[in-house]
């Protein structure tokens, strides 16, 4: 009896050793040589494999970083600047800071603002709905409300609000990977800079119809009236195809555009208190105080005019920057010629 046990143990031990030797040999012989840096970089990445960086997954991102030797064109939106700092340390290069971004839904057409013109009974998919017709409201640019963006999100950051029928982004969870942006067939979701303390101003509308048509379809639509463009002192707002757009790099969050917007399409989020309309006149004297030596304010008319010099100043500033840019371009051109 004991013989059998001894033989079994002995034979299994020998077999195990033999296989171990073979495995070790094979592992050495067919070893895949990989830059150890790739593993190091990979280890600090969040391993979400969301594809938000534009690569197939975290490992592919790490591989590309190491191969290129720099971090240019590489940014992990999930990890943000903190992770990119770690990656830069591992790589031994300087980190490229990027402003954190967040997904923003550019439609506010809840049923009370955007009347339904028909009922949809097909497959519950925005993509299918968009392929069939222009949606169940008068606005053909607005949210279709079937939730393709919700299905696309890997981070539980976007949900349909049953009351408004529109998707809402949970900012804490949003990693700006862009999956929802790709999923939306109407391009309603946009990645925008999160802004200081999460404060940001944007046009929550995509309607490119003429004012009357847009307003008839939805009471909160952008009608392309241009008031915000005039109110903005920083040239951050442009109107293309009857639709205003706020450039988040130029926006200084003064919210003058929100004050003048007649429909409410211009949206400001995460600001402490809603901006009362009076502030517009309050701000004007402030501006005039700064420019007192130039234009002494005598009456109300002058007060409103007082805003102009500032606008001119900012123009000059932009002109200067344009000149600097032009110079830079010249330099680079010269370099190219050399």
């Amino acid at each position: 009896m004991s013989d059998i046990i001894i033989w079994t143990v002995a034979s299994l031990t020998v077999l195990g050793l033999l296989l171990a030797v073979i495995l070790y040999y094979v592992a050495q012989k067919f070893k895949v040589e990989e830059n150890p840096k790739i593993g190091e970089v990979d280890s600090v990445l969040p391993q979400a494999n969301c594809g938000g960086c534009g690569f197939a997954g975290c490992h592919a991102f790490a591989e590309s970083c190491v191969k290129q030797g720099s971090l240019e064109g590489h940014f992990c939106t999930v990890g943000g600047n903190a992770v990119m700092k770690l990656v830069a340390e591992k790589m031994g290069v300087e980190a490229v800071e990027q402003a954190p971004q967040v997904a923003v839904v550019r439609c506010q057409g809840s049923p009370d603002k955007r009347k339904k013109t028909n009922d949809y009974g097909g497959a519950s998919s925005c993509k299918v709905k968009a392929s069939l017709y222009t949606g169940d409201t008068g606005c053909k640019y607005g949210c279709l409300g079937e939730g393709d963006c919700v299905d696309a999100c890997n981070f539980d950051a976007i949900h349909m609000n049953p009351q408004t029928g529109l998707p809402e982004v949970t900012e804490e969870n949003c990693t700006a990977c862009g999956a929802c942006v790709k999923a939306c067939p109407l391009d309603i979701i946009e990645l925008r800079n999160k802004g200081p303390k999460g404060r940001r101003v944007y046009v929550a509308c995509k309607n490119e119809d003429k004012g009357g048509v847009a307003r008839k379809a939805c009471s909160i639509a952008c009608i392309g009236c241009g008031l915000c463009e005039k109110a903005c002192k920083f040239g951050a707002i442009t109107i293309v195809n009857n639709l205003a757009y706020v450039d988040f790099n130029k926006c200084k969050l003064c919210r003058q555009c929100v004050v003048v917007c007649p429909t409410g399409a211009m949206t400001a989020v995460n600001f402490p208190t809603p901006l009362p309309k009076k502030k517009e006149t309050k701000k004007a004297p402030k501006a005039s105080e700064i420019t007192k030596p130039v234009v002494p304010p005598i009456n109300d008319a002058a007060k409103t005019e007082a805003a102009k010099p500032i606008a001119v100043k900012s123009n000059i500033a932009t002109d200067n920057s344009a000149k600097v840019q032009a110079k830079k371009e010249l330099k680079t051109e010269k370099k190219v010629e050399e």
Partner: protein
Amino acid sequence: MKTFNIGGAHPNDNKISKDAAIEDFPIVKKAYIPMAQHIGAPAKPIVAVGDYVKVGQKIAEAGGFISANIHSSVSGKVLAIKPVADLAGRPVNTIIVNVEGDEWLDSIDRSPEINSNITLSGKEIIDKVKECGVVGMGGASFPTNVKLSPPPGNKAEFLLINCAECEPYLTSDYRLMLEQPEQIFVGAAVIMKALNVDVCKIGVEENKPDAIAKLQSFESKYTGIKVVPLKKKYPQGGEKQLIQAMTGRYVGSGKLPISVGAVVQNCATAIAVYEAVQKNKPLFEGVITVTGDCLPVQKNLKLRVGTPMNEIMDYIGGVPEEAVKLISGGPMMGKAIANLNAPTVKASSAILALTADQTLRKEESNCIRCGKCIDACPMGLEPYLLIRYTKRNNLEELENNDVFDCIECGCCLYTCPANIPLLDYIRVGKADVMGVIRGRAAAKRAAAQNKPENNKKEK
């Protein structure tokens, strides 16, 4: 009796409007004539705002090889040329004519006599068909002149006239068969001359015995044209299905009917060709069925292109409250009307009103892999697989599984016991793959264009 042998469904045919004789619809006050009434490039307007146009006058020119001329269906002044929403709500460039009287072009022969003496040659016929803007009236609106000129290397052997009208509810073709049978025969004879073939078969489904009898009475007068009764099965009117049913030949995947020597024309198209060639009358009116169990009256109306659909509904006494869904076309392949102000087009075949019970989709559940959709597919595809690939956005596999063969007949969706909207997804998948194929073709063209330039540089 003959029929096709792969797949198919047997929906109740509900031809409740079949006894309503074709009625002339009164001319509307404003006609909205869209520039995109056919497959292919939209037509380009050749009239300006303020111009006076007559009935039958060409107002827009074909915008490419696959495109068609458009003629005014009314007489009056052009009010505007601007985008107007079509039935899906999408803007289409439209010529709006303010109707004044009913003045026809003098060249149009309006006499009721049938002119069966074909004087034009084959090429002249094709040019005439092109000039008159005739498109396929079966639904796809493919320009007829393109179909009548087979690509080099192919020779048409026979002509099939599609009088199957397999869609439930539709009766416009049936009424045409009863009221204008001889026009169909002359039209067929004209097309035969253009194609230089001497065999023509007219396929009619068995549920229209009086139409079959009526058409058969003309067989002796027109040699070479035979009427073939077909077993009732949907989608018999599909081009490839009809060819298989009537001749036993299979059109291969991705091939055109001409590859087996067949040319298929709808019966309304045959009449349009007859009118264009023999009567010099461009295509600007057609017969549409206005039907539905909830409507007080069932009608077959002959109306001008560009008639707003809401005026048609007003004519028959308004849209009843229980009608929750209006469909342009039949219940299987038709499109829901999201915008009732949209005008009719050349190939409009019906307005169908459905009640809530008839149109409500049951709740979708999971696929139980019963394979009913595969049995039902008349093209031999696997719909359940196609929608899985569509949902995963796997365009490569979609293409490998011949998503392009899908004729969008809706048999899969009709038979699915889990109420999965199969066709809805397949249509999206098809469009996506189409985008990829177009991109590939464009890249090829760009490469071909770049090549000679590179060669020149090298020289």
